[in-house]
Each structure stands twice: as C-alpha cells, then as structure tokens.
C-alpha cells in the first residue's frame, strides 16, 4: 500500500500556471486571478466571475460571424474553481444580480452556457434589438451542436493515445484537428470540469487520463 498521502481531486489548470511563477506556456490560460487566494484556501468571492471572464477570453472572436458573445461553460468554471458548491453558489448570485445569463445548451440537461450580460447586450443590440431573435437562437443551437462534436473529438485524442492518457502540455501542443474551431484549451477546460478525464499530477506536469469507469 502506498504510504504517500493521496491528493484528492485535480488542481485547476490556471492554478498550476500561476504557482509555477509564470512559466511560459503560451497556449494555456495565464492563471485564474483570484480563483485561489494563496493557492490553498477557499475560493474568494470573485472567483467565479474571474473564471467566466478568463474563459470568455478563450472563446475565439469572429466565430459564427461575430454574432455570438463569448460563451463559457459551467464545466469550465469548475475546472478553474475546484470547489463546485462554492462555484455554483457564486454563479447563482451573479445570475440573480444580473451580471451573467445562463443558457441551456439544448441536448444535455447539465450543459449550461454562461454569458456576461454586457457581452450579451452588445451582441443582441447589434442584431435586431431582440434578445430572442430566431437568428441568435439558431446560432446558439449550431454552436451547441458543434461544441458537442468538437468535445468528442478532443476526448478522442486522449482515447487514442497509448494507455489512454496524455500529458496536458503534449495535448495542447498538438495541432488541433481541423474540425475543432473553439480551441484546444477551451475544450480541455470543459473536459476537466465535466470529469470526463482525470487530472493526475506528475513530475512532468498534469496528465490527463480517461477514467476506468
């Protein structure tokens, strides 16, 4: 039996970058500012908001004819804010204060897209001033459908690897398949937060491994 204390759960991507003292990995997010106070305490009150802003920066602009605001996913917020209950509570407060909107991405009852209200209004104002215009809904639906396909494509990259595990740095360094338009980092956050892959800390960095179950 191993005598080493097992580390519960995964550390978020952003946190590892920050604690490494700014080790440059250009394609990974720079670190969730405010997600963890001293890298060990409970998440600060602005953690979820900072996470949503951070993830919004990952969303590629100009996609879908620039008609969609940057959408973050709830599972991505979990990968940056490891305490899920606190993340849920903060997102609910932000929703009640009107700072974010939560959109149901049709196919999966748990898949929620999170949009900052100001982004949502600027985009909607650019359309026909109707927040529920059919074109917007079509775009969100097609975004959701394509997101699911891309997510499975990125998961497939891990699945095809030898022993079904892949170093995070290697995955991010690979050329994204042509179909993945939202960016590898975006999808990796989503996979980690949705617990579709396990994060294992190793001496060479974080390893993504498919769970046995």
């Amino acid at each position: 039996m191993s005598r080493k204390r097992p580390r519960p759960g995964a550390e978020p991507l952003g946190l590892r970058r920050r604690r490494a003292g700014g080790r440059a990995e250009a394609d990974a997010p720079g670190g969730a500012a405010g997600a963890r106070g001293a890298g060990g305490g409970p998440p600060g009150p602005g953690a979820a908001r900072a996470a949503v802003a951070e993830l919004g920066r990952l969303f590629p602009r100009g996609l879908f004819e620039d008609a969609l605001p940057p959408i973050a996913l709830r599972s991505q917020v979990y990968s940056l804010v490891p305490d899920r209950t606190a993340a849920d509570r903060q997102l609910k407060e932000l929703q009640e204060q009107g700072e974010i909107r939560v959109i149901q991405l049709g196919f999966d009852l748990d898949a929620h897209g999170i949009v900052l209200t100001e982004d949502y209004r600027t985009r909607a104002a650019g359309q026909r001033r109707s927040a529920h215009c059919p074109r917007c809904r079509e775009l969100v639906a097609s975004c959701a459908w394509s997101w699911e396909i891309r997510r499975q494509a990125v998961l497939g990259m891990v699945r095809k690897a030898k022993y079904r595990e892949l170093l995070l740095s290697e995955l991010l360094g690979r050329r994204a398949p042509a179909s993945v338009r939202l960016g590898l980092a975006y999808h990796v956050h989503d996979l980690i937060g949705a617990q579709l892959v396990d994060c294992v800390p190793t001496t060479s960095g974080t390893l993504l491994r498919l769970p046995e179950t």
Partner: protein
Amino acid sequence: MASWLSQWEVALLEPRPRALSWTPPVYLFARKNGMLGFLSARQAGLDDPLHLQRAESTRRYHPDVHKYSVETVQWYPHDTGMFTSSSFDKTLKVWDTNTLQAADIFNFEETVYSHHMSPVATQHCLVAVGTRAPKVQLCDLKSGSCCHILQGHRQEILAVSWSPRYDYILATASADSRVKLWDVRKASGCLITLDQHNGEKSQAAESANTAHNGKVNGLCFTSDGLHLLTIGTDNRMRLWNSSNGENTLVNYGKVYNDSRKGLKFAVSCGCSSEFVFVPYGSTIAVYTIYSGEQITMLKGHYKSVDCCVFQSNFQELYSGSRDCNILAWIPSLNEPVPDDDGTSTRSHLNPAFEDAWSSSDEEG
C-alpha cells in the same frame, strides 16, 4: 482529518456479498446465491488486527434458504435476536438468530429490491418494502400482515429508508426519478416529492418535480435525520433538507453509478465533519457531506463494490464487492511518512493520540 484509512483483514467469501448490516459485535452479510452468514468481530486493543471469523451461515440445503439473490439484510434494530432478509425470490423472511430458522415469511407479487425497519421506532414494527411494483408495502412484524400500501410512484421502488429522527417518516426512491417522503399515518399520499430545481419553472418539462435525471437508486439519511442523501443513475448525488424537501445544491461532482439495482452507501456517525462513503466502481469515494469535497478514493477491491456499512462505535467502514471479499477500513492512526525521508526512523503519531505527560524517568 487528513490521512485516511487503511484496509485490514480480508474475509474470503463466495459467491459475492450483496448486502451488509452490523450490530456490535456481529456482522451479517447476504450472498448473491441466496445464503446468509454471520461474521463475528472481536477487537483486542488498537494495535491488534481485527479478527473476522465466520460464525455461522445457512447452507444450500437449508429448508428456508432464499432461492435467488438476497438484496437486503438488516438486524432487528433493538437486539440481535432477529434479522430480516429480502430477496429476488419475492419474499421477505424474518429469521430467528439463535435457531437460524425462518420465523415468518412475507410473500410479494414482484421481486423485492429493498426493505428497511425503522431504527428508532418504538410505537410500531413496520418493515417498509420496495418491490418492482410501483407501490410501497408496509409489513407489520407483530401481526404478520402486509396490507398497508403507499401509492404514488409510477415505477419500481429501488430504495426505502426510515428517518432516524421520527418514527413515522419514510423516504422512498423509485426508477421514475422521484423521491417521496411519507408520513405513514397519513392516508392521503406523500408529504413531499423532492424537486431538484426547487420549484423553478424554467427547466425542461421532463425534469419537473424529479429528484434526479435518471433512476434514483440509493437513499441515506444523515445520522441526525435532518438531511437526506440521494444518488441516481445520472451520476449525481444530492443532499436534501429532510424537513422541507429543499435541494441544498451541494455539488459532489460526478458520482459514477451504473447499478441497475439499489446502491447501498453509508454515512459516518460521530465524526467532526460527517462523511459519506459511496461505492464508485471498484473503489469507494469519500466525500464531506455538507461541503461536497471529495476527500479520497479507497482502493482495495478488485471488482465493483456493491455495499458499504459504517460502524460508529469503532469508526470503521465495511465494504462488500463482487470480487467475493469484504474489506474492513479503519482510520489511520499515524500520519503517513514520506518514503524519501530517510532521516525519520520513528513514524509520527497523530497529535490527537500523543499524551502531554512527561516521563517519570527523565525527572530526578
């Protein structure tokens, strides 16, 4: 509590144990082929290993043996003179421990998934039984009748549990994704149906008024009876306030659950922050109940774990699995020493167990 548990003695049983129940110092287990057995547990001091010895078990030729898999066993809550077992052979049997004969047999129309006797009730001797039929049946041990029926669910009942706080409150979980709380004295239906969205109407219509987005196959009250944990095939575990049925929205993450029958999980009793132990594939996941944090995964079984039971007197966890083993888990008394620390020759004892008295050899 930082470091966790180590496993101890392994009892090899075949075929696989499906359900466990404890009352000190004897354990009762149920086997998949219909047989039952006892393990007696003696503990001689903290340092000696726990000895589990098979004391008695029913044999295949026993006249009252169950024909199919025994799903649930439970000691009579007040003493060990009696225990009950329910099985896929559509019966609930009440056994006399000393003679190992069936004292009473209740027959049902459908296979029995789960049964439970109230641990606190003194006014009644009702056993709640969940079967493949959508009605919950209450059998009275005193009179031998089972005509009290609770209607309300639409599919099979996968788990039932009495409240450890109130004599007459019962929770039932069904494959129709609903969990209902009943007061069995009331004639007119259930008290509360748990709603995961807490009444918000904006969600999709098919998940309205459901506790989970899939079958609900596990139920456990916390030891004080104020909260209820439910687990479902949507890979979620939820914590509810049992007095008003509100979803506390504690998020445990993905709690993998592919069991087509009931999943028997356990909560701790008497710890400073209570834990819940959930079978998770071939490991046991340990979470803090009120914060949702995953503490650790207990690895030791080779195949999927079917049942866990927690013994609060010694703070031990027992788990049964399809690899025909029952494992006993105890809290680790010593902090684990890092392997590469060659200088420390003495393992560091947990400060809670150190005494502050000076040794008399050092003085004078």
